[in-house]
């Protein structure tokens, strides 16, 4: 039980980001890195000591998820969105079988790192990771637009990107009960709403004439290319896994 509680904490089942946000001990980008690191720690720990997780912990992570969805609707900062998304997906790691939830969590982390690097790119060029009023990215900065489109579609759980395929793998492998239905609906729509919200505010809309848009540098292109290739590999692998 004690190990399960630790796992709940590591797998973003408790909204500990509130502490960091209130105290301002860490900046937003660092909160994401800390959450990601704890998350990876959780994966290692869960792999070493496999445990049955109780329904009450799943319920706690569901509450965290719903709360994080609410928080994510109140922000327009890429860093914040990155770690909120991690917390939104917490019930997946608490409820589903590790064999299936670990690939999903790795794929989710890779996508969130993509969003994190988009945040870095925004910070470098627009002096903040805030995407508010930087609209029409699809037309104004096509390369950044493509990368962001793919990350958002991946987060919104659409195939052929890995999150959607691995999510199907998760729900197929688990036992169906009331909690299963609630978790699936919350994860499915939670991810979708937040991702689509970012899409309408960044990719769509008229490009802002008061902003000087700058597209990806060669370094950005390389980083995002690597992330996209990794996601593509995960997609193919995930599809084979689900089919089997």
């Amino acid at each position, binding site marked *: 039980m004690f190990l399960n509680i630790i796992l709940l904490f590591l797998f973003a089942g408790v909204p500990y980001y509130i502490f960091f946000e209130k105290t301002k001990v860490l900046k937003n980008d660092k909160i994401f890195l800390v959450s990601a690191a704890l998350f990876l720690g959780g994966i290692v720990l869960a792999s070493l000591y496999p445990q049955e997780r109780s329904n009450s912990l799943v319920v706690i992570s569901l509450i965290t998820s719903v709360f994080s969805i609410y928080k994510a609707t109140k922000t327009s900062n890429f860093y914040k969105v990155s770690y909120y998304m991690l917390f939104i997906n917490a019930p997946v790691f608490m409820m589903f079988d590790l064999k299936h939830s670990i690939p999903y969590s790795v794929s989710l982390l890779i996508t969130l790192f993509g969003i994190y690097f988009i945040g870095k790119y925004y910070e470098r060029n627009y002096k903040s990771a805030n995407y508010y009023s930087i609209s029409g990215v*699809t037309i104004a900065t096509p390369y950044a637009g493509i990368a962001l489109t793919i990350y958002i579609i991946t987060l919104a759980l659409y195939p052929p990107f890995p999150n959607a395929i691995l999510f*199907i793998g998760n*729900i197929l492998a688990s036992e169906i009960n009331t909690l299963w*239905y609630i978790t699936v609906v919350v994860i*499915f*729509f939670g991810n979708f709403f937040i991702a689509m919200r970012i899409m309408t505010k960044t990719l769509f809309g008229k490009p802002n004439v008061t902003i000087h848009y700058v597209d990806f540098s060669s370094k950005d292109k390389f980083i995002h290319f690597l992330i996209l290739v990794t996601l593509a590999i995960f997609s193919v692998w995930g*599809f084979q896994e689900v089919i089997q």
Partner: protein
Amino acid sequence: MEKIVLLIPSIPIVIAFILFFVNKKELMPKISIMLSSMVAALALYGTYYVMCYDTPITGFGGLVIYNELSSILVPYVAILGLVIRKYATKYMWDEPGYKRFFILLNFIFSAIYLLVMSNNLIVLAVAWQLMSISLYLLVSFNIRSKSAVKNGSWTMLTHKLADLLFLIAVVLTYKTFGSFDLAELSQKWLIMSENPIDDPRIYVIGFLFLFAAMMKSAIMPFHLWLPYTSEAPTPISGLMHAGVVNVGAILLNKLAFLLLLTPMVLNVAFVMGLITAIFASLLMLVVSDIKRSLGYSTVGQMGYMIMEVGLGAFSLAIYHLMVHGIFKATMFLESGSLIKHARHDPNIPKRLSYELFWEEKANYSSKKMFRLLAIFTILPVVIFIGIKMILAEEFFHFNAAIVILAFAWLTGTQLFLSFFKVSKSESLKVVFALVSSFIIILFTYEYLGLALEHFLYGENALRFYEAATMNVTMLMSLVLLGAIVIVGWLFMYKQHFVDVPKSKDKPNKTKWLFYKILAKEAYFSDIYLKYFKFFK
């Protein structure tokens, strides 16, 4: 060699990747059209193979299949795709995002091919969702327009809900029947249908698939996304109304044998389809926006399609979707040039029937007209029954026949009365032309329909009618048909012969209220606007 046909869904993806690296604008449509022609050629070869050898082409570990349904639909979609690409070459030339448009177009075509050719529920789920996202990106193509993006969000929301229901249905299907393979499942369902079991879980699966199909096919109350996405560029509208919106009927055809086990699902499909057909047709007449009116026309047709599925006429739905698709795509793609010409010539569009038969008669004989109208009201039913008796007599064993008969009568009478304007012209030439052309058209339509039914489902086709049969006696059905004919006839008689006095009084309150509700689209759009502000 024939396995090459199975590469069809991947070709548009390859085209999209090639287009990504092409910078010369002139080359983009050329590459797209050239390689898409290859898809059409492959599809036709596949159809030839399936028809000649009477065996489906399977591959990739049984994940994809080129069977009877694919051999009908894939060439249709491929040829439609070619026309749309050719049209878009010039139409989209000055639009920002020319490359993006062709890339997205290829993605959606890939999703449609995959959906039609899938033989596995997971592949079907992937294609089903891939189509949702491609459609959203295409519908919101004009990213600068707030309304386009907002309406796109409605589309997305409806489709996401359909995706969720679909996924849950897939999971439940796997848990209940233990397989993803559609061919294997169909076989299992067919055997099970011989000794039906009353398992509520199967009904839940059936309803989930039905509702997912209804959402994507814009059936009431999930219809709003279709009429409100007419802001998309014309080629996209053409594709949407001729191809994408039909996926509901395609899905239900792929799962036809499952629905054999769930007659109640078929009955619900019939009722929902019927309501949609009537309601959307009424709205089509009332809404003031011409593009939205066209949207409602498509919603109405989708209603008919789902209704046909509900009656067990699965192949008829496929036939309908193709005929309607060709008709609607022509309308959308032709509308631009028609508007352009109409601005110069008020007599455009010309009606051939007017030129051939129009004969203004100031004093026509009321008696003669009454007889003519009576004949025209009864004749379609008589012709339809006659043709059906010649081609497929067993059709009358199921009460679906009565409903189809009623609709055939409605369409036939409407065609006779409105198209040729009998109220003003009643020469022998008109009557002869009317009756003979009606017989030829109906005979061809019925013959092709039956050939398609035999090709798609063979001897199992009648089982669907049997499963869809409602618990209504033949006598009751005939009484109902008689009532529809009499009411319809009275309505037409009143329309054509009774002078409506021009009153200066205010219109009837009930009529006015009815009109107001319809003009406001039954307040569906207001409700959506008020309560569905998700992406703000």
